[in-house]
């Protein structure tokens, strides 16, 4: 992640309580190839997700995104599909950790779920947590990414962060 980076991409919008089973079902977890697994992303809740998604897109969701199973495959299939960032009213704790560990920023933005239209283009200032839906031009203020998570993100994910600490 570059400090001043402002991400831009179209929003794919979900509701509350999207759990990790809905992001990627348990039955696909034994697939070792992420590209193959990623074909099944959001299969139950949004069957055409893999047709709609493009590199750089942003997930927008309601409360408690990523609850349930601890599977890191959930943020990994999002990353494999080109998702650049996840914005939600709140995150389940393990998903939040996992997202940063694999190098995807997750930002808490209260009130975002009814401020963004499906497929609307968004600009996200990662460091400041500011989200601008380009359709309305509103300015949504999210929570700043905590220092620990910024460190991991700047390193490029937890593996690189670990290497920087222990080598």
């Amino acid at each position, binding site marked *: 992640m570059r400090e001043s980076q402002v991400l831009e991409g179209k929003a794919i919008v979900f509701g509350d309580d999207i759990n990790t089973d809905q992001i990627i079902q348990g039955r696909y977890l034994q697939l070792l190839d992420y590209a193959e697994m990623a074909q099944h992303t959001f299969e139950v809740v949004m069957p055409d997700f893999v047709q709609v998604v493009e590199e750089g897109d942003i997930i927008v969701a309601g409360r408690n995104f990523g609850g349930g199973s601890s599977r890191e495959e959930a943020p990994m299939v999002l990353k494999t599909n080109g998702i650049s960032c996840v914005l939600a009213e709140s995150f389940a704790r393990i998903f939040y950790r996992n997202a940063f560990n694999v190098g995807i920023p997750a930002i808490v933005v209260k009130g975002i779920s009814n401020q963004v239209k499906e497929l609307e283009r968004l600009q996200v200032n990662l460091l400041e947590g500011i989200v601008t839906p380009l359709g309305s031009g509103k300015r949504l203020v999210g929570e700043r990414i905590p220092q*620990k998570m910024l460190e991991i993100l700047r390193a490029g994910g937890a593996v690189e962060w670990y290497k920087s600490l222990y080598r």
Partner: protein
Amino acid sequence: MPYTIAEKIIAAHTHEKNVSPGDIVDVSVDFIMVHEVLGSRIVSILEEMGFKKVWDPEKVLVVNDHWAPAPDTESAQIHVRNRQFVRAQDIKHFCDVDGGICHQVLAEKGLARPGMLIVGSDSHSTTYGAFNAFSTGLAATDSAMILATGEIWLKVPEAIRIDIEGQLPTRVMSKDIILKIITDLGSDGANYKSMEFFGSLIDNLSVGSRMTMCNMTVEAGAKCGIMPMSSAVKDWLEKNAAGREYSPVSPDKDAEYSGSLSYDLTDDPVEPMVALPHSPVNSKPVSEIGDVEIDQAFIGSCTNGRLEDLEITAQILKGKRIHKDVRLIITPASRRTYIEAMRNGTIEILMDAGAIVTNSTCGACIGGHLGVLGPSEVCVSSTNRNFQGRMGHPTSRVFLASPATVAASAITGIITDPREV
């Protein structure tokens, strides 16, 4: 400063002088459990990290349980990798496909004890709180860090205090209580928090029933669920962890809680509860759900596949036959559970009533194998999650309940109050 149980255990595992909720601290980990995620993800992450040796091979349990024995070549390959890792790293505790479900096996091996800080590569690792331990689930990369260093960063959680007085009414189980509690809290009501249980009900519960409750705290988002030491836990440790040290942890009197719940079953008994599709926090008393016809009844999983669960099922099914349009699948939580149930006659009663008894595996609970649901099928299940498509086809529907309610429903073919059969 006064501490909750979680704060006290974290404070004992960090170099920080004091800990308070919200602090991010580095902790030393007493024990880690990893299952198939080792072979599928962790091994390659460790390679990327340039890892050579596990920090302490005596403090690791590796389990092949999610797809056991392997139903396909992908799972078989993951199992092979796990066995190779166990040999190469000289891992002391290993449970292959014949042993059972990780959380049950770890408990049976006496590896969860009061005061410990335990991490598992599985969200239901909250289960070990039944043994007065701090335990939480993380995923592949964090597990890799722990395997390499024995350390991890954690955010110190706020705590919710839950007091429960009274006794379980006949054929009401701890599953019914925890379904009610997480429904009262909501799916993120305990997000990032420690759920700490107290009261006469908790003090008198069996170890298995305690494990069921701590297991499901994660369905309300909790980081951990912890209970104080009890005489049942003491007996369990004498039998399964003889000679190993432990130190029980109680909260300080002035410990601060961010919230509290309290239940008195003497004045206000809990009814058998059923969680409707597609959320575990969507539960209602069984009397309020109307007639729900079922195709499959399932008893098993890390939540409710223990000996006491099989025994109450046998008590309800004894001398009866299950409904002709229902298949009843029973998956004991471990090999030891299976053998004990076989020796005391439980398995025979279940089979005579028409049940299919499978080997121990996570199997049906994760829609993996040995009980996958077809289009529009309905299952009443003693497991922990009824997310859409969790146990099979996206149009299938899962209702979560206690083993007693599942057993009663298998007889009638509709979801039934176990006190009515």
